[in-house]
């Protein structure tokens, strides 16, 4: 069991993101995203969860050769790294709202790159929100808490959870038959209450 986990601050996460993005290191970006998401869940921290969505979008884009080998991507990446460096400056100046604005701007750049260079209709940032919310749900947050942390609706989350194997991994407490038998008994016992 990995018990001693070093705390990552938001600037640490951004610094690692810049380094791994520059190297187009998809796996390391994924690792940073996972660690940051665990912190977002543990602390219920929306600043962390937004950064996770941003990293998700970045790693998805740099995993596609038809995107990262284009000249357009080079220009996008330059803008993203500039933005991330500016976010760090604002974080150091303790201006968290400006920091968050730079993260939002970075996500807007990612969306634009995805729309112009991607081949799929689905949107990488929105997909990221749903997938990360399902991870937060798997970690034990309630559906409402997990969907709120990643700014999606509970409906979107539950529809996604339904097509994963998550419910199949849990230990069964009572079977459907047992639950319905109890409901049958209880509704019979309490039938007088209804009248």
């Amino acid at each position, binding site marked *: *069991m*990995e*018990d001693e*986990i070093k705390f990552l601050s938001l600037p640490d996460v951004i610094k690692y993101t810049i380094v791994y993005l520059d190297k187009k290191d998809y796996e390391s970006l994924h690792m940073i995203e996972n660690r940051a998401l*665990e912190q977002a*869940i*543990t*602390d*219920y921290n929306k600043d962390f969860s937004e950064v996770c969505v941003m990293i998700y979008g970045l790693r998805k884009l740099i995993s596609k050769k038809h995107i990262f080998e284009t000249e357009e991507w080079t220009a996008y990446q330059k803008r993203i790294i500039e933005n991330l460096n500016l976010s760090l400056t604002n974080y150091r100046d303790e201006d968290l709202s400006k920091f968050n604005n730079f993260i939002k701007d970075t996500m807007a750049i990612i969306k634009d790159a995805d729309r112009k260079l991607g081949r799929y209709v689905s949107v990488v940032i929105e997909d990221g929100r749903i997938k990360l919310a399902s991870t937060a*749900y*798997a*970690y*034990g*947050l*309630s*559906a*409402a*808490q997990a969907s*709120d942390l990643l700014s999606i*609706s*509970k*409906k979107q*989350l*539950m*529809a*996604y*959870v*339904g*097509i994963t194997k998550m*419910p*199949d991994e*849990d*230990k*069964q*407490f*009572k*079977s*459907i*038959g047992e*639950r*319905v038998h*109890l*409901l*049958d008994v*209880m*509704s019979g*016992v*309490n*039938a007088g*209450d*209804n009248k």
Partner: protein
Amino acid sequence: MKIVFDSGVIISFSETCFLSLFKDIKEVIGEFIITKNVHFECVGKVKHVMRFKLSSVKIEKEINSHVFDVYKSDKQLDEATNKIMYLTNNMFFVRGKPLKIIQIGEAESLALLGLTDASYLAVDERTTRMLVEQPHSLIEIFKRKYKTNKVNFDEQKYIKFVELIGNVNAIRSVDLLFFAFKKNLLSNVFNDKESLKGALYAMKFKGCSVSFEEINELIDSL
């Protein structure tokens, strides 16, 4: 008998076109109650989103036809909700930190259980259901997911939580659907087990926390 509903079960029924079944189930069971928050989550929050508008219109119709009683917020509910929020979000600790596992909407539904003397919470999502009926299984999930043994559970807070919600059971959309099948309330739609299996699978794919194994076991037993 009274059942407090979370939004998930209502949405699952709406998405699988079984919403009208609530009226018949209610006639067998008793009272169905929702909080204003659940009403907002099912109707108000999504009625301007085209993707969900139809579902919200259908649910609003059910609520307006008094299948669900909407509990009006009052001081008593607010106080009980705040206590539930504090107890549940300071009950489990991972590496010494309390996990904020539930939101105010869910806390309000839990608080309503105690205030209305309800016997059941109808809930499709895993965490709130486990809080009610098997909190120790949540500890196992936290240990597995966070890859640590440093997970603590505050038993005293759990006891206070149970005192507030009362002796309640949890029921999911798949259970209610099977209940309706057993009571012949679905006979105008289907009455064979293969169709039932399809309906239960549809509920699962809408997010009801149930495994394929559970559904298949039930169908094999019929």
